[in-house]
């Protein structure tokens, strides 16, 4: 597979405190990689290292298959970023802030116009950035990051401070970049419901800096045991069939529930019931939201599983 970001056993932190522990990221080209973890898990630290802002204690980083150390600063032409809060010159207008970024990224004037339009910052772009609300600053930060449609976009908590309209337009910007330009996007966040709507791949960090899981979104659902909830026409027969098939079933009201199910198991249950002439009204994996999966992964998966 073609990876835009590859790290090998990346260890790092600040001073003597270790924040990341042997993290090996693999971010496929043209993916939207939701980088999840509790506060202090090392997400920001990892993103800083990817930009060369922080030196790792050990391990290697490759961007676009090139070792980062040898490729700086030229490789940053292909990267857009927003790390934590946007860094704005408060005495300058939004337009002047954007102009600084445009010049330092060697882009055309038209690129700035496109970023303004895409993020909807045009209505206040002439005002000094010092007068902006948190959401307005965040939007301008996103505009600065996407300027010039970079091949790789690193966004650290980009949804912070955005209202419902801002979130909607942010999602549409990301989807547009992803679909039109094949941009690879890494979003670190703790807002699971937002990440869930856009991410194609997920990386989950533990609170102590281990990478617990990474892979396609569906793989996460398949890997984490969940509840399989089934509703059928003849439940007594269905229970007998499933028990004979070595499934451990519970009855909850009119539902049959199989604890610790995976998507593989769901397929098997479906096949078994259908071949035995049972009509299925409902068959679904429960608690498959990203947040629920995240909780299950962080409580059940050991770091070495992901390595």
């Amino acid at each position, binding site marked *: 597979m073609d990876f835009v970001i590859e790290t090998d056993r990346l260890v790092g932190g600040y001073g003597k405190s270790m924040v990341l522990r042997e993290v090996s990221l693999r971010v496929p080209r043209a993916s939207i990689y939701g980088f999840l973890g509790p506060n202090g898990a090392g997400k920001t630290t990892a993103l800083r290292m990817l930009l*060369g802002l922080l030196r790792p204690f050990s391990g290697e980083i490759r961007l676009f298959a090139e070792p980062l150390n040898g490729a700086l600063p030229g490789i940053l032409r292909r*990267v857009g970023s927003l790390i934590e*809060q946007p860094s*704005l010159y408060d005495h300058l207008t939004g337009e002047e802030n954007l102009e*600084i970024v445009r*010049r330092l*990224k060697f882009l055309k004037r038209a690129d700035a116009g496109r970023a303004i339009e895409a993020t909807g910052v045009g209505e206040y772009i002439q005002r000094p950035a010092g007068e902006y609300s948190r959401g307005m600053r965040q939007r301008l930060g996103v505009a600065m990051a996407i300027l010039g449609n970079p091949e790789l976009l690193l966004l650290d908590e980009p949804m912070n401070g955005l209202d419902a309209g801002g979130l909607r337009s942010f999602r549409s910007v990301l989807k547009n970049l992803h679909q039109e330009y094949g941009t690879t996007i890494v979003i670190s966040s703790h807002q699971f419901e937002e990440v869930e709507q856009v991410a194609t791949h997920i990386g989950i960090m533990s609170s102590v800096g281990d990478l617990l899981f990474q892979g396609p979104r569906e793989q996460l659902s398949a890997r984490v045991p969940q509840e399989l909830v089934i509703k059928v026409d003849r439940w007594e027969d269905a229970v007998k069939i499933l028990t004979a098939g070595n499934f451990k079933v519970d009855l909850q009201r009119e539902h049959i529930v199989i604890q610790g199910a995976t998507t593989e198991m769901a397929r098997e249950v479906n096949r078994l019931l259908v071949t035995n002439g049972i009509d299925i009204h409902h068959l679904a994996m429960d608690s498959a939201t990203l947040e629920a999966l995240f909780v299950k992964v962080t409580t059940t998966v050991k770091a070495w599983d992901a390595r």
Partner: protein
Amino acid sequence: MMAVAWALISTEAIKLRRTIAVWLAVGAPALAVLIELIAVFGRTAPPRGDAGAQWRLLLQPGWTAWFGFCLPMFIAFEAAYLAHLEHSGKQWKQLFAFPIPRWGVYAVKMLFCALLAGVSFLIAVTGFVIDVLSYGVVYGLHLASVLPWPEILATAGKAYAASWLLIVIQSWLGARFTGIISPVGIGFAALVMGFVLLPIGEGALSSWYPWLLPLRTFLAAPGDLHQTTLPAVFGCTGAVVSGAIACWDLARRRDFA
């Protein structure tokens, strides 16, 4: 390379819009011009000698105030302020995520500090000349006809060149410390130390002390080319060498909050 240099220079110019950086470059020499005006008009009698000697004597308070105090303090404030533009909004992390060499970011800061110091020199020189000419008009001295431009420009030019080392040192301090107080405080303390060293005379430390270099170009006898030029050459050479070391030192750091 030219594209990178232009990007860095033009963005630095944008950053200075609506800041006090330019006002500092006007205000600091204005203070020296005011001191010169007070000193000249406070004289009990017009200076004796030929017009050249009169000019030299009348300009002396202005040069001393400018080279000895106003200029070093202006450089300390200006360098710290230019660096503060990046410290205040945590800009370094964003700047260094752009495809530009880090040393270039620091070098351009030093360049702009030197440019603004150049502007302040022009204002100071113009102000001093106007002060002296006004004095000549009031006291009936024919100073305008013998205006010694070459000597005035040489004095200012040498002091300006000598101040470059100071510009580099203060810019280095400004980039290293996140607040304005520390680099300005160090600059002020170093200047006071210079006043202590000054009476020592021709000792090695006193002669090559960066905060005294501009003043050294002026204190020697006007005809003593060696004594007036050497501090300027030392200031320039020192600026190039220490500038390279400063850029290397600052650029190698990789821990930006």
